[in-house]
């Protein structure tokens, strides 16, 4: 929705829609309190934080305040984990979104109500399982001595495999569990979008003798295209953030696998766990936020240029 008001119309605009604005006030206040005021803490990334001097009283870090960022780059690992994080996010977003859309389409086509409800609940269930538990599942599957995967292999006459020594396997494992956990949640959004499509379109299509696949292709997918773009954009906004819980619980501190499974969040955790330096942690968080910001602004302006209707802002 866009409002075209004259410059002098600002007060008029507020007055005209005062009830609407009043309703928005609590949300704006919360955002301001919880998101904007704490942003001043970013300054911590450029300070040598001392507890007794407070955030603003602590001395500035060396190298014009950028000293806290150095650990990230000196070993060359910063680049590697950034690339890993981006690739994982792209892969996970692609896989889980495609699956979410498929699930939403299937659920909407189901005719039996009870079956639809049961399936939806079952698919949604993993969302409530914590990564700690998932980590335990994974361990019990792939543990070299007692894991059921190796039991199964040997029972079928194969040789046991030490999954914890083969990095590429874990890309698949992580992608699978990420999708498994998020598909139910993601599909709800698409189901809502599909429900919002005008029923008359389908009725008209039925009269014209359209098949189910034709209806999906020419009515449903174009109808939810907007939602898809928004979800993708929101995911892009988090592209430098690794899901720490997921990576840490599934991989743990297994150095053998880091080459292909290390993301920014796990790297920072591991580097700083022995020094517990809040300034350096803040520096890492700032690095992520800064680049996420740049990426989302860039992508959004590109979209605005080519498909203005789909831009977020």
């Amino acid at each position: 929705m866009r409002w075209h008001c004259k410059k002098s119309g600002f007060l008029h605009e507020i007055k005209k829609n005062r009830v609407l604005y009043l309703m928005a006030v609590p949300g704006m206040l919360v955002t301001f309190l919880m998101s904007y005021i704490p942003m001043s803490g970013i300054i911590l990334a450029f300070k040598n934080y001392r507890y007794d001097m407070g955030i603003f009283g602590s001395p500035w870090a060396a190298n014009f305040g950028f000293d806290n960022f150095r650990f990230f780059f000196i070993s060359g690992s910063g680049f590697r984990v950034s690339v890993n994080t981006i690739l994982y996010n792209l892969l996970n977003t692609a896989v889980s979104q495609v699956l979410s859309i498929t699930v939403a389409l299937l659920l909407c086509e189901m005719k039996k109500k009870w079956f639809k409800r049961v399936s939806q609940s079952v698919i949604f269930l993993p969302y409530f399982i914590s990564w700690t538990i998932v980590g335990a599942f994974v361990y019990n599957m792939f543990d070299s001595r007692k894991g059921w995967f190796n039991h199964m292999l040997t029972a079928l006459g194969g040789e046991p495999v030490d999954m914890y020594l083969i990095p590429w396997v874990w890309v698949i494992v992580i992608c699978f569990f990420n999708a498994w956990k998020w598909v139910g949640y993601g599909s709800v959004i698409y189901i809502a979008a599909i429900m919002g499509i005008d029923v008359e379109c389908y009725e008209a299509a039925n009269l014209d003798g359209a098949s189910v696949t034709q209806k999906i292709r020419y009515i449903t997918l174009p109808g939810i295209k907007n939602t898809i773009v928004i979800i993708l954009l929101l995911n892009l906004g988090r592209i430098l953030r690794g899901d720490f819980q997921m990576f840490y619980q599934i991989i743990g501190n297994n150095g053998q696998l880091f080459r292909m499974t290390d993301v920014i969040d796990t790297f920072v955790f591991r580097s700083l766990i022995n020094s517990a330096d809040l300034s350096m942690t803040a520096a890492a968080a700032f690095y992520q936020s800064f680049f996420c910001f740049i990426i989302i602004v860039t992508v959004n302006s590109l979209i605005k240029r080519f498909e203005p209707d789909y831009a977020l802002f």
Partner: protein
Amino acid sequence: MKASFKTMVALFALTAATFTLASCGGSGQSPSAGEASQSQASAEAPSASGTPADGIDISENVTVEWYILGAPDPDWDAMMAEFNKLTNEVLNCNVNVTWIDFGNFLTQYPLLLASGENVDLCFQAVWMNFQSEAAKGAFYPIEDIAPIYAPTAYGWLPEEGIKNLSVNGRLYGLTGDNINRELMGYIVRGDLMKKYGIETIDSYKDLENFMQAVVDNDPQIIPLDQGGDGGLFIQMPQNLGLFSVAMYNFPLVVNLESEKEGEIVNLYEFPGTLEYFEMMRDWCSRGFWSKSALSDPPSATYRILTGEVAVEAHSQYSWIDRYLVAPKEYDLQYFPGQPHAYMDSYAQSVAAIGAGSKNPERSLMIYEKIATDERYFNLLHFGIEGKNYEFTENGELNPLDVTLFNPEACSFAWMTKWKAFERDLIGSPPSKAAVWSYVESIAAPNRYKMFSFNSEPVKNEFAAITNTIEEYAKPLQVGLVADPEAGLKTLNEQLYVAGLEKVWAEMQKQIDAYNAEYDS
């Protein structure tokens, strides 16, 4: 102690903390330098007006907040009620204890201290970054008030101890007079040794034979508990004549046998290290521990207690701890794995007062009571007499049910160990006396036990090296790297890339300064 690193939510907690802190920083919750010196001035006031013995003002009833490590036993609250009766009567105050569990101390303690929370007393230790936290202003300096409010607890400290507990010339903690001599070794299932006819474990060769026997005879048991927390590697540097002054697997160590006093060397380039890693590779491929050892989830209890493993590599104190709660038929034995027993640092377990403390004096007075009055000591360490423990005729301690109150597992014992009140445990292993006297016989001085490396000047390189160790050294430690020689080469290359030389120079500088002061 189980200084395990089974950390769960740390990064999130830490990043969240930066924001939490950001929001309260403005409102001045963290005590500023000015406030700290003000409250210190008011703390000194009573000492000027009254004599230490009776002139102390305790008219206001307060609750002091203590933070300690671990998890409470079921009878803890009942005991605390008794304890508070005592403190209320004599000192007009209550003690409220908050436990921080072992899995989370590396993340929760810094947050607690950084928040400026009212911490009247907390457990601290050199392995919890006591010195660097102190340097960041986390604690309340007590050199002025400790002699007044805790004369005994302060008075026994030798000059070396005071130095050890001080940072930048200010005293930040106290500790009990019973300092450990921790000696790493092997805690072994005695019943299995008997079964295989193995008498003793004196060397890697003996250990190897025992573990091979386990693999051959009891394949359902994992021979060695070799998780990611250290396992056998903790004792390795000392067996090469080296001594770690940072994390147990940090590359830079002091070469004790060098002609030059305090020479820092790189553990991973030292002769003998490659042979060790090759042995680990051999042991791992023979199934002495799980190939997923690095991903083993932290277990709720020690794996030797559940019969999952046959050997745990740890100290004689851990042995007593395990022995008391392990099934009796396991008959756990202990064999030393290191040539020398060094006295622990005075900062191995410290009672420190938080910078945000509201009642430092009262807190010290209670601490003093524990050191001087057996009633306080017995309650905290052994529980309620008649319910949790009784003394035998010759004064041994008989814990009535260790599942309700375990005297050995209690973390209070760490910062309040007083020789005068310590008791021998009745269900202790028969060989305890022999082990203890053996430890005495190989006791040796080691000045570097008191040295603590301040990583602050090279914190970026330190962090990068920490990461390199996790990625390249740990797989070598547990023998997961197929070619240890190539693996070791990569590790060293990566260490140099991460800035090893810079940290090396800094550590050598600090060690030289330490030695100059020590020898003067």
